[in-house]
């Protein structure tokens, strides 16, 4: 299979953890995504930012994984944020109502500035 496995990296920006995503978010991404979220969800972190700048494909299974992360975040009182979504996936986040629960920012700088 020639799909592009998801690669993640996690770093802190104050009380926000930033997860940079690169590749495709589908069924193959489950382990990488959950692993990154676990690393990001330190006790003093109040929000986790998912950076989608380098994500070129999200399917319904990927949406389900994000729903799973969102459920986890809400359970522990954290906000889940997004940045860098293309217009197409921004529309999908609206259709699925994910955008009702996850603030969508155009870029990381804006997201961090408003959640410091």
């Amino acid at each position, binding site marked *: 299979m020639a799909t592009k496995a998801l690669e993640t990296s996690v770093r802190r920006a104050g009380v926000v953890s930033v997860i940079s995503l690169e590749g495709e978010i589908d069924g193959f991404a489950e382990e990488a995504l959950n692993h990154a979220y676990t690393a990001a969800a330190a006790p003093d972190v109040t929000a986790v930012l998912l950076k989608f700048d380098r994500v070129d494909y999200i399917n319904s299974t990927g949406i389900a994984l994000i729903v799973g992360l969102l459920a986890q975040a809400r359970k522990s009182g954290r906000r889940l944020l997004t940045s860098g979504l293309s217009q197409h996936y921004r529309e*999908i986040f609206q259709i699925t109502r*994910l955008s009702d629960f996850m603030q969508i920012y155009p870029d990381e700088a804006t997201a961090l500035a408003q959640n410091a």
Partner: protein
Amino acid sequence: MSNLLPSLWQRLFGTGRRAAPTLAEPRPAAPLAAPPTVLDLDIAPTDPLAVYFQANAQPVELDKLNFESPALQRLKASGAKLVVPLVSQGELIGLINLGPRRSEQDYSADDRGLLSNLATQAAPAVRVAQLVRQQQLEAQERERMEQELRVARLIQQTLLPRELPALAGWQLSAYYQPARAVGGDFYDFVRFDDGRLALIIGDVTDKGVPAALVMATTRSILRSGAQRWAAPGRVLEYANDMLVGDIPPKMFVTCLFAVLEPATGRLVFANAGHDLPYRRHAGGVAEMRAVGMPLGLLPGMHYEEREVVLEPGDSVLLYSDGLVEAHNPAREMFGFPRLQACLGRHPGGAGLVDFLLAERARFVGPDWDQEDDTALVIVQREALPAGGWQTLASFDWPSEPGNERLAMEKVAEAVRQHAALPPGRLEKLKTAVAEATMNAMEHGNKFQPDVCVHFEVRASAGAVAVQITDQGGAPDRAAETPNLDAKLAGQQSPRGWGLFLIKNMVDEMHVTSDRHTHTVELVMRREESNRGD
């Protein structure tokens, strides 16, 4: 006469003066073996000597002539004693000049009679020889000009594209006909790695080899500029700056440079003083205006870039002035309004070139001598069949997890090649195709790699339809509508978004099943519409 005389003997016997054996420059004390020479004497028609010989076509001793005449003075200075005019059909065509007799006696009446007879008989022969020589020179000149034309044509024909680029979903046609005096028209195509295509047409002022050489240079400059920038305005700026220092005086180049993006129909263009291209579309025929000076006139010019989007069925005509500047016997010009009207009357496509040439031929009449080169380039986006469906792609794909992404790209490529959907709507179709394919591979074919999902991609004038067929028969695939609140509360599985996404991405979804197969048809219209749901 004045033109004939100075070169009389050169024409007869070539330029070597010693090659004129019958006419000796008068040399009173000349040695016996002195070679005869030609006196290069130009006698103006108004010279009294010319007037005299026209009236007296007889040998005459120069000492007896006393009037102011530059020609007479030169003859006397050369030592000539007796001059015998050569007259043919009333026209003075030469003189036989004789020096003093070696006996130092005067020429006798017999001598003069003999010389007069000789001149009478020689003159027609000299005249014939003159005419033959003149024809030979004219033939040489014609041959030289023909050779120059052959070189100019060779340069042009060598540099014009040998074949047209093949573009899926597009028709390209080109025509080039040099006039007798070859001009500097040219057209060219440049392919880019990303699928775009540059369309170039140009016209060098002047004709013949100089114009052909400037055309060749311009073509090379434009090609190298295109490789660096692929932006029409920038390429023309570069070409102008390169040409302006080196182009011969009073020459310049008009050029239209356009870059076509076949997937979207976007055509970006800039114009260096060339005839405005025409775009034929559903609403009529329109000029494509962009401002810019011809190349090679002034340094540092800026070229405006404009763009249009060619819809299916639209075409663009690039042409040189040989088409519009053709004249009929009444000296009326074919002209832009007539060309625009012709374009409006023709449905376009491969026959448009022949149609335009036939219209011009009808206008100019049968005896027309082509005044200038004619170059035409037509690019047309293929029309989608009205009311019917055209198959864009048909393929099978093995059922393995993750393969939906590859199948989705293959469908997208077919749609993109035929430019059947705007990019935003194609993205939505891609997501729907991926989801339907995942369902087909997982639920229909149970991820058996040797059982394929079949894809049919079709387009009509207004929509694209993708049929995705698996071998799962008619199962019960009813899925509950996803509710995010319920999912976040743990009352629903986080999954189950596939069908929901499909329905929200495309305009229509049709499902058909039989005992063996299950087909989902996704329909996406070209234009956004109120879905009413």
